[in-house]
């Protein structure tokens, strides 16, 4: 019997290596796998590259992971937040690298990784500083930038429902980056609010099919906290 459900955070985090590229879902406080980020802090992997939309709030979660010196590099579109104190101070001190990526390019680079596309062209950022050093090319008289797939070694994902095959649904705007991160990573670890039986999610309405999911941990934490 296929059973992707794990019973402990230690099982969920098993085998994450130093130097991994970790994709972390969520947008604002919604759809963030907070428990898994805490689990990663506990697990101990270091020298991480983290791809995520925002670079952490306050001193908890991702900000704490950075504060502990475990993150070498952040790939994100919006390193600011309501309280970006940890990232800002590390960045000013030259202790963390930043790869700034337009938000849509960030999402599409992960989609490309999941779909077997090593590189693609986009209009976004053409003629701007964020195209510096990238290949530029014209198609039908318009200028495009070549962007490369962004693969994760690990994705940390938050879902609303999950079953033992790893099929997932998301609630409202909690979907955001989670599905493309699940597609883009070799090891996709999910925390889910609800565990359901196989077949409870109607087959037409599975948001992430289990083929993109490796481990599921039940974390019924309730609503997202404020920002």
């Amino acid at each position: 019997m296929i059973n992707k459900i794990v019973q402990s955070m230690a099982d969920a985090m098993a085998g994450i290596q130093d130097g991994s590229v970790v994709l972390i879902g969520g947008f604002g406080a919604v759809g963030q796998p907070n428990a898994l980020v805490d689990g990663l802090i506990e697990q101990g992997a270091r020298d991480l590259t983290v791809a995520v939309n925002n670079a952490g709030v306050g001193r908890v979660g991702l900000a704490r992971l950075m504060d502990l010196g475990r993150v070498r590099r952040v790939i994100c579109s919006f390193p600011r937040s309501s309280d970006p104190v940890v990232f800002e101070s590390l960045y000013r001190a030259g202790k963390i690298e930043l790869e700034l990526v337009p938000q849509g390019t960030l999402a599409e680079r992960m989609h490309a990784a999941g779909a077997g596309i090593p590189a693609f062209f986009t209009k976004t950022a053409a003629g701007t500083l964020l195209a510096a050093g990238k290949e530029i090319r014209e198609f039908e008289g318009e200028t495009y930038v070549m962007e490369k797939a962004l693969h994760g070694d690990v994705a940390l994902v938050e879902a609303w429902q999950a079953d033992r095959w790893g099929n997932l649904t998301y609630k409202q705007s909690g979907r955001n980056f989670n599905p493309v991160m699940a597609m883009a990573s070799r090891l996709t670890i999910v925390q889910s609010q609800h565990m359901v039986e196989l077949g409870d999610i109607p087959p037409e309405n599975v948001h992430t099919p289990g083929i993109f999911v490796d481990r599921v941990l039940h974390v019924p934490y309730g609503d997202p906290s404020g920002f």
Partner: protein
Amino acid sequence: MSATASTTEFRALTRPQMAARLARDIPEGWYVNLGIGIPTQVADHVPLDREVIFHSENGVLGMGPAPAEDKIEPWLINAGKQYVTLRKGGSYVHHADSFAMIRGGHLDLCVLGGFQVAENGDLANWATSENDMAPAVGGAMDLAAGAKRLWVLMDHTTKDGTPKIVHRCSYPLTAVGTTRRVYTNLATLDITERGFVVLDMAPGLTFENLQARTDAPLHR
């Protein structure tokens, strides 16, 4: 911006007035993304019976007004991380699908704030040399490059009076040549092959007075 620093009598538009002015030009049926800041206010000035479908980068299509305090749904936010509602007929998608709507040219309109808009249509709205924080771009470059129409909603000058409507942008660009129209507290300007063309001005403002606050030639 108020008119107190001005040498003539005119009334600059307030922010709600600026948002309302722009909202007037959005027809029913358009798919529209409103950037963070003043642009977000535009939605408040589109009457609910004029069906305009608002999109948010984080995968929300068909946003409605902000919820009452006791009706907040904690899983439903917009790209500015504010609580919003969803209208009947709205839907949720993931981030790549949401940006496919933007980048694939499916939005009729995107409204962004700006630091500078140039007469060649260039927009600068994400980074300034004065800013020593880590740079942040969000979805601005995707929106500015991808939507069918880009309108910018911003003050006509900085607080110290420096023009934001310019011949060429000095700040780092967000997108090249895509701005079609600018709504400021002083005027509405179309960007054409001739450069800026004035569509209307704040009550009491003269063309010469507007030109004096602008760093690019204006046309009537």
